[in-house]
């Protein structure tokens, strides 16, 4: 058996899994350090959920190796289950039970952890603890799911798209809870297709596509690795006076140009040289500028640069 780095909470080597004719995970390698919040970012169908469920011991891989907290599923499943907190992507907890009954049920499975009421207080559902699960809002349901994941005082938290489907306001509460858990020095593996979530919560991010990791690093590193930290977005010209994109490519500091819904997106290294150059070029072509925006590159831009597609396409 190969030596396992003592501080890695999760080690995945050459993981493969296919369903019928779809290859879900295609030779994946990952290492998550103890105490870090690691994000798996990718579009739907990238293999995030399959990967996480293999790590959670819910799905059997075709081949490859998974070591969680120094333990393997085939030899230490019972021990591992006690130490993991798991939130699945779209579990519907029983609607006829109350919040308290649900958390208490999950608490009964674990040897350690706070009492059900304390955990309910932690996710700020005290006022709802005698309400039926069916009467909760989407955000409250997600927090309840989080309570069920936290109830065993886990060393390692797996969260599969913890805020998908929530409105921006409702996403903040889970984020705060995840940050609080992170502060206690324990490990989190999180999947998401929201780049802002990954940027805010994750120490490191692996971008997945077609069952493989196509980029790995801190959010900052990944953004920097595309060599362009700024995005320039503008709309110019019309059917009668078309824009000459080729001329724009010659502007210094421009890494990439693409068009999207009639707007032009340019990745540039430095705004202060590229913006005047762009304006000068538009003047030279005699094309009127209708809109101009700039923003810092995000993980979304990284993904688009790497794959040519958006995270939430389809």
């Amino acid at each position, binding site marked *: 058996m190969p030596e396992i780095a003592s501080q890695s909470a999760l080690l995945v080597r050459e993981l493969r899994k296919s369903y019928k004719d779809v290859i879900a995970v295609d030779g994946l390698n990952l290492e998550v350090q103890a105490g870090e919040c690691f994000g798996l970012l990718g579009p739907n169908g990238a293999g995030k959920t399959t990967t996480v469920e293999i790590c*959670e*011991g*819910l799905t059997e891989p075709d081949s490859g190796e998974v070591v969680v907290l120094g333990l393997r599923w085939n030899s230490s499943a*019972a021990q591992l*289950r*006690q130490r*993991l907190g*798991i939130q*699945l992507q*779209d*579990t*519907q*907890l*029983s609607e*006829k*039970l109350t919040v*308290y*009954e649900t958390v*208490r*049920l*999950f*608490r*009964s*499975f*674990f*040897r*350690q952890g*706070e*009492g*059900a*009421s*304390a955990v*309910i*207080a*932690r996710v700020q559902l*005290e006022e709802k*603890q*005698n309400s039926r699960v069916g009467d909760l809002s989407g955000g409250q349901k997600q927090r309840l799911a989080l309570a*069920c994941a936290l109830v*065993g005082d886990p060393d390692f938290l797996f969260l599969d798209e913890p805020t998908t489907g929530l409105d921006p306001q409702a996403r903040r509460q889970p984020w705060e809870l995840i940050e609080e858990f992170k502060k206690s020095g324990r490990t989190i593996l999180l999947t998401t297709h929201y780049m802002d979530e990954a940027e805010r919560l994750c120490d490191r991010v692996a971008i997945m596509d077609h069952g493989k990791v196509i980029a790995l690093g801190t959010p900052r590193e990944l953004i920097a690795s595309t060599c362009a930290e700024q995005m320039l977005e503008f709309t110019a010209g019309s059917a009668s006076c078309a824009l000459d994109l080729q001329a724009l490519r010659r502007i210094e500091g421009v890494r990439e140009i693409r068009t999207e819904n009639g707007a032009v997106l340019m990745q540039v290294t430095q705004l202060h040289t590229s913006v005047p150059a762009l304006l000068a070029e538009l003047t030279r072509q005699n094309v009127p500028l209708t809109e101009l925006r700039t923003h810092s590159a995000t993980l979304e831009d990284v993904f688009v640069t790497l794959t040519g597609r958006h995270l939430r396409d389809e």
Partner: protein
Amino acid sequence: MSENTISEGGMSVAEKNSPRANSLADHPLVQLTLVRFYEFIREPEALFWVFAFPILLAAGLGIAFRNRPPEVLRIAAVTPELTQSLRQEKLLEVQQLDSAAGQEALRTGKVALLAAPGANGTVEYRFDDTNPEGRAARLLADAAIQRAAGRIDPVATTDKFVRELGSRYIDFLIPGLLGMNLMGSAIWSLGFAMVDARRKKLLKRLVASPMPRAYYLLSFLLSRILLLVVEVGVLVGFGAALFHVPVRGSLLDLAALCLLASLSFSALGLLLASRARTIEAASGLMNLVMMPMWIASGVFFSSQKFPDIMQPFIKWLPLTAVIDALRANMLQGANLTQIAPQVGIISFWLVICFALALKIFRWR
């Protein structure tokens, strides 16, 4: 963190921050069973099907098959003489009809027999010999006519009527319904709950926790016990109070029998729900399995009515064994030793179904 006191239930103070769950109420099997029980009683439809339905059915059938005074057979005669002779018999209600009207009445079942004069002073009886009423009417009518013509019976006889509780149709029916209800409620409540949990991925979520899997399946069986007391009590109590259906065997034996039957049917339900991903698939399978038993296991009429060649199969059906055992206990006062063969069959199904369900159960 806030003070964790719960007004309702009042069970949180002790368990607050306890490092180890050690009270009995915190045992996963107890929690799983309680949760199953809550889920069930919070479903009004399920309550109706389990409790109200069998009572309505028993009441309806009880009224339809209530004990009436000895039945009077309606017959018809063609001539006034015959009518006169036949009216001597009190168990016959005779009307005089002409030949055509009489045949019409016979054909439509309004009368069981038509008496008409034959050639040379003979009497002709027209009746359906496959109909018990027809045969009974034939015997009564012939005796009445022979006696009216002056026959003297060589042996004097007297009749003594024995009408015993426990041999009426309602006595036969209540144990049958009890068995049917034990089967239906176990299979339906368990099957649907389980497929629903699988469909909503709740099953997968539970399996992702350290929950012992056998406890989950066991909790379904145990939660049945809690409901069983009410279920059996209501039906047996209803039969006893309204129709004086006897319970001649020991109540303890009856309780043990119902418990075993319910566990066995729950295991069968578990097996039927062990793979299905949709409610439709599961309910199709459940009906497929239950339908032959509703018909053949003797709920409404004796399973002896089926051909001999089928009897060994029918005897091995779990519902047949349950109903036979229930009838033996309630009506004949049999103890557990006397119904050992049935208990054996029920236990066989329990073990086989539970073991098989555990093996092939789809946890996600």
